[in-house]
């Protein structure tokens, strides 16, 4: 299959992309630590941890988390390099130290770092480190369950007793966080991984940055500028290649509304979903990207970067008229009236002082 740019499009190998060998690895070691919200506290709470026995009932749930982490963790992330530019990241070092020697001590060092960046907003959490290895392939999952309170209802033969329960740790749909790393070489691999953070688009910066930036000392694999430029390029080529006027209009309308995404994490796929683009428009955009990994790769949207690539919106009418304005202002500058919907006949009107007029040698 060839896409709009003449590239041979890949099958859906976005998951396979970063994982080199997306093979199943058995969960072998589980450690759990209670992590307090001790950010900015001079004296850190003592971290209590335990090795979780594989015979407990908990194992079934943790095995599911371990197995599904590759799918569930939807953000491709990479560890940051050191501020002096060297290939060094303290969290990566600790994770690798744990994999070299899995145990309570090496796990506690990671948990301590999580505690030191956990604010009272995030609260008490139960932190799990899940690790397995098979034929030299290693996999590690870090997972944080926020504390909650709840009510325990116990049904007797004729009655019901209810009891308030504190420190219940649940896989919250709104605050769950996890990260997964796979690789073979402890020296060369483990620079990238995948993460999930349900709060990454929180308006509160400290919360949105807590898991990936502050704890994992990482960032999205695609930089903000890189991801935004790709999105803009895909939209630009899609509007050029679309044969259906309605599809063009849909894409242009979505591009104009994109300012609302500023600072938010998104992907080209997310963009299509968020603006409810039709299957035709979505397919037209998807055809412009080289592979599914690019289509699904997350990045933080940057309005200025987007504007560098999509500045001008132009409309050409069958009578030869060409209307041009900045994409953001087009609808304000030109008033549009549909004269006949069946043959797409429209009337545009505008007014203003002439500040410049020119002839162009040819249409670009």
């Amino acid at each position, binding site marked *: 299959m060839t896409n709009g740019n003449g590239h041979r499009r890949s099958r859906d*190998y976005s998951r*396979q*992309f970063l*994982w080199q060998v997306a093979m199943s690895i058995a969960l072998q070691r589980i450690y759990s630590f209670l992590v307090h919200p001790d950010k900015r506290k001079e004296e850190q709470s003592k971290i209590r941890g335990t090795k979780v026995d594989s015979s407990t009932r908990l194992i079934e749930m943790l095995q599911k988390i371990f197995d599904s982490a590759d799918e569930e963790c939807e953000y491709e992330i990479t560890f940051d390099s050191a501020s002096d530019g060297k290939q060094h990241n303290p969290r990566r070092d600790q994770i690798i130290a744990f994999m070299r020697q899995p145990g309570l001590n090496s796990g506690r060092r990671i948990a301590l770092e999580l505690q030191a960046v956990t604010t009272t907003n995030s609260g008490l959490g139960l932190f799990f480190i899940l690790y397995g290895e098979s034929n030299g392939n290693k996999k590690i999952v870090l997972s944080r369950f926020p504390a909650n309170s709840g009510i325990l209802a116990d049904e007797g033969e004729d009655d019901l007793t209810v009891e308030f329960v504190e420190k219940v740790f649940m896989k919250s749909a709104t605050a769950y966080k996890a990260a997964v790393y796979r690789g073979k070489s402890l020296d*060369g691999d483990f*620079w990238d991984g995948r993460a999930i953070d349900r709060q990454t688009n929180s308006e509160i910066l400290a919360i949105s940055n807590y898991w990936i930036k502050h704890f994992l000392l990482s960032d999205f694999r695609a930089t903000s500028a890189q991801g935004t430029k790709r999105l803009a390029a895909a939209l630009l080529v899609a509007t050029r290649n679309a044969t259906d006027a309605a599809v063009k209009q849909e894409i242009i309308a979505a591009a104009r509304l994109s300012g609302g995404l500023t600072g938010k994490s998104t992907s080209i796929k997310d963009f299509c979903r968020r603006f409810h683009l039709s299957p035709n428009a979505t397919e037209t955009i998807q055809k412009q990207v080289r*592979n599914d990994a*690019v289509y699904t790769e997350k990045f933080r949207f940057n309005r200025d970067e987007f504007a560098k690539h999509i500045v001008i919106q132009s409309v050409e009418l069958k009578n030869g008229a060409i209307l041009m304005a900045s994409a953001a202002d087009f609808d304000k500058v030109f008033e549009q009236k549909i004269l006949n919907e069946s043959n797409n006949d429209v009337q545009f009107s505008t007014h203003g002082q002439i500040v410049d007029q020119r002839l162009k040698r040819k249409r670009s």
Partner: protein
Amino acid sequence: MSNVESEYRARYETVLVPLANRLERHLRDHFDGWTSIDRIVARAKSADRFVAKAAALTDGKMKYREPFDQIQDQIGARIITRFLQHVDPISANIDEYFRKIETQRIEPDSDAEFGYFGRHFVLFLPTDLFDDEIPADRAPKFFELQIKTLYQHAWAEANHDLAYKPQGQLTADQKRKVAFTAAQSWGADRIFDELCTELTVDAKRT
């Protein structure tokens, strides 16, 4: 032929060379219109050089136990700028559009010495480069990027061919000659950079 060599040779033809070509096109597209750039090239490390590097020892032990995962310059790219003042804006752009795990300004150890100068990055290969013909799981994760001026590049290339052998094998006079050419390149870069600044300012005034 060792396992490392045969595996690398197979990878070289089918993955590394075509990937380097794609990377070169990608970088050229990315920097399209930058008149400060003289040229952009990308290449796959030759099998002989890879095998030699893979066999390197540190304190009598193998430096790379997993050479395919540890050697990060299996694909290398180079951006050659006209003048020194162009290196910073290009580096800043690379920082913005590529995810890095390392960046270094390479200079001689002592301020009183002349030798190799350049800006080096170790960057993730962009996701855009892969498809069914070159799947990511058969490719390295990183590439090395060097940003150098024309003079830095010219000196490094000539030096590599002539003087790239254990320092003990060069006579004192030869070492001085190598340092002299490095100093000349350094000086030419400085003078051209100053001229570029002066003439650009003059052109703006007129």
